[in-house]
């Protein structure tokens, strides 16, 4: 008799690839129920995470792409809301999507929104609080855990809002380099377009960094006024928080 580990490998191969693996297992009556449960539940998980992508692609095409994705990439953990992290990349690789890269943008925004919705709570760092610090430059900051930066191909804000209202189409804005910041405010997740300086400062603060150091790093690629404006934007949006410890 095979060991439990070998048996489970055979079972998993038969789940993923149908006839492959232990044919005795995969062809037993009833095995298809497990195969269908795995596949169907994961396609459904993607459909729930990406409702707007589904609207834009249409039900049939979405399910076809989702089914391919499920075959190629299983979740790494049981919290299904985090499944689909690579779905936008999978869409982006499809030749047929080259003229519809705004759909990839929407897909990325949807996944980021979900991550932001369930991210840790933290008090945002305000300009007032920063002003009260003895040495604001020494305050150790980092990006707020309930915020994300998403890099887009198009200005899709109008389309996003239309989809949020339940409409299925809207004009897509200009193509280009479109960084978006998502931030959770109460029960709502807001999406804001940001400029390259703000993006750079946000990226610099991905790990806890003394503010003065982060501003100096950003100032190597932008003038002081742009860096100050970027800091003002991040503070105003609530995208920064005070880190608990200064890195060694």
């Amino acid at each position, binding site marked *: *008799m095979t*060991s*439990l*580990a070998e*048996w*489970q*490998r055979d*079972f*998993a191969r038969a*789940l993923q690839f149908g006839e492959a693996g232990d044919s005795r297992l995969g062809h*037993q*009556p*009833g*095995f*298809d*129920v*497990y195969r269908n*449960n*795995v596949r169907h*539940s*994961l396609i459904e*998980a993607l459909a729930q995470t990406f409702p707007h992508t589904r609207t834009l692609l249409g039900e049939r095409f979405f399910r076809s792409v989702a089914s391919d994705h499920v075959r190629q990439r*299983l*979740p*790494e*953990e*049981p*919290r*299904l*809301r985090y499944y689909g992290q690579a779905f936008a990349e999978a869409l982006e690789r499809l030749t047929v999507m080259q003229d519809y890269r705004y759909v990839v943008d929407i897909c990325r925004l949807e996944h980021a929104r979900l991550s932001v*919705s*369930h*991210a*840790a*709570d*933290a008090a945002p760092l305000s300009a007032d609080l920063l002003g009260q610090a003895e040495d604001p430059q020494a305050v150790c900051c980092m990006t707020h*855990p*309930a915020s994300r930066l998403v890099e887009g191909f198009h200005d899709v804000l109008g389309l996003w809002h239309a989809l949020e209202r339940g409409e299925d189409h809207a004009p897509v804005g200009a193509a280009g380099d479109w960084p978006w910041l998502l931030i*959770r405010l*109460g*029960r709502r997740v807001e999406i804001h377009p940001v400029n390259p300086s703000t993006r750079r400062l946000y990226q610099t603060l991905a790990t806890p960094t003394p503010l003065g150091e982060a501003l100096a790093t950003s100032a190597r690629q932008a003038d002081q006024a742009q860096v100050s404006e970027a800091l003002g934007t991040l503070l105003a949006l609530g995208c920064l928080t005070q880190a608990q410890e200064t890195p060694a």
Partner: protein
Amino acid sequence: MLMDAHRLPRAAQGIGLKPQHMTELIAERADIDFLELHAENHMSAGGPMRDDLAAIAARYPLSVHGVGLSLGSAEPLDDQHLARLVHLVDELNPVRVSEHLAWSRLEGDFYNDLLPLPLSEESLEVVARHVDTTQQALGRQLLVENPSLYMALDNTLSEADFLTELVRRTGCGLLLDINNAYISAENLGRDLSDYLSALPLSAVGEFHLAGHSLDTEATPPLRIDDHGSPVCEAVWQRYAQLTDTLPAVPTLIEWDTRIPSLPRWLEEAALARRYHASAATAPLACLESAS
């Protein structure tokens, strides 16, 4: 035995906790003894859903039902996932914590289903080790749920013997899903009465009831545990018999697909009260107030 700190009213009735009912359940205390949540849906670091769960926890006793720990995987438990479960249980102090006799994880991939495992001395050692680890991490008893099966496996131990020995070795309890037991018996052609009478019933800490569907296109037709319909009559009858033996055990009505309105789900829980063996001897007024 279950710890006193985690007691519910005698013959308590519960329903599942679903996002679409959160607002209603928070706004007005529903007539239900407890709510059961799927652990993995509530393992968030923060955000509004956690706030809602805190509001629910302040109003209702909760039970935590895990679906992703993969007690039956030959490989070690996922430490990170176990830590998340411990964190959730520490926060909620639920009346019950349960998981499944199943596996779903292999070499970094998660198969989102409760997959069956062949019952043998080797798998018993694996599951007992994982139950031990989980109970030590939780600092409390775990209930292990019997599976619904769609295919026969090369078992060297019967499911009832396996569960009996698991209880003896680990001190875990059982979550007896009567619908699962019925489905497995029908699909595999085993005798449900024999199965139930061979279980260590004194270890049962919770009943599950749910609806299932019949796939008539399968050869032979299969009963599918889809939790998408009312409990069937055959399962109600078994429930009535089992509650005669175990009158105090709490009951959870599951519904995970085609989820009904909250009032409809509560009706099903009220129906469970009527089928409960104690209903036969209860004064009429009690029955009416339960419906």
